[in-house]
């Protein structure tokens, strides 16, 4: 599997910048109003380091993205998204295929669960990633664009499922029932990242087909 790391970094960064205000508004409703700013700061730092990151093997590149987020985000999404990428990178191996990627993603999610002392169903980013990794268990990596779109749909459903959930973790937990009816900002940025990664994959599939 060839990972277009530079293209992914640029695309994720642009996507999160474009949605920074929306993420911050969501976070103002149920958190402390800094999620959009924090994610933008973290991914700006990743973009600044992208030449070095792109020169690394895939696993080390993802670990470096994670460490850059940890050192720059400034809020809870630093250690959480940072752990996701660090776990993903650490377990990817030298010659990753689809199965290696899925297993590494699972390892990354386990790190997020440990760091946040959380599980799925608590109105967090895990409500996007846990159903996603379950879906990937039966996923056909040779299915082309259509199956990649199924990943986006799964992630979107995960994000939307947080709207009806009661927050028990993070600042939103202070709000109790007032957290109902709002999508979790961490789930939203998780969805945005997954959607962006999938769209990069779809673009690359199209390029391969036309060449």
């Amino acid at each position, binding site marked *: 599997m060839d990972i277009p790391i530079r293209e992914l970094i640029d695309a994720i960064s642009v996507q999160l910048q474009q949605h920074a205000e929306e993420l911050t508004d969501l976070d103002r409703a149920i958190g402390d109003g*800094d999620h959009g700013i924090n994610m933008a*700061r973290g991914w700006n730092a990743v973009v600044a380091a992208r030449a070095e990151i792109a020169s690394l093997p895939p696993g080390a590149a993802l670990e470096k993205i994670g460490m850059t987020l940890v*050192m720059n985000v*400034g809020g809870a*999404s630093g250690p959480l998204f940072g752990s996701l990428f660090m776990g993903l990178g650490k377990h990817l191996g030298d010659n990753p295929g689809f199965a290696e990627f899925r297993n590494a993603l699972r390892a990354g999610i386990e790190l997020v669960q440990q760091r946040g002392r959380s599980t799925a169903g608590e109105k967090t980013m895990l409500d996007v990633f846990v159903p996603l990794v379950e879906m990937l268990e039966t996923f056909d990596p040779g299915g082309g664009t259509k199956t990649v779109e199924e990943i986006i749909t799964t992630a979107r459903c995960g994000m939307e499922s947080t709207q009806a959930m009661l927050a028990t973790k993070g600042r939103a937990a202070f709000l109790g029932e007032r957290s109902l009816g709002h999508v979790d900002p961490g789930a939203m940025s998780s969805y945005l990242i997954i959607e962006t990664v999938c769209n990069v994959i779809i673009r690359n599939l199209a390029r391969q087909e036309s060449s």
Partner: protein
Amino acid sequence: MTQCVGIVIVSHSAEVARGAAAMVKQMVGSDVAVESCGGTVDSRLGTDVAAIRACLDLAWNPPGIAVLFDLGSARMNAEMAISMCPAEQQERIVVCDAPIVEGALLAASEASLGSDLNTVRAAAEDA
């Protein structure tokens, strides 16, 4: 002089961190190593893992360090910073589940008596 448990204060706000540290220092003088940090790398509200890591280095004493924090993400970033310390130090750095200012004051006064890490932590968590 016996070495005391050090205190590290991690707030989202640089002003809160400085203010809490000033109160603690006025109370316990220079017997206890007290370090504090607050704010993100670009000086907004939040916490900075590298800054926390630097505070842990400065406050390190063999009896250990008690860390006080204000909000959940400060705790998570403190835990990240601790995980970057040398392995033999990590087990002697504890995060106290306590109000940041009162916890720091009680932890520091307990530390100034030469108490061990668990006693210092308990003092903070009773705040």
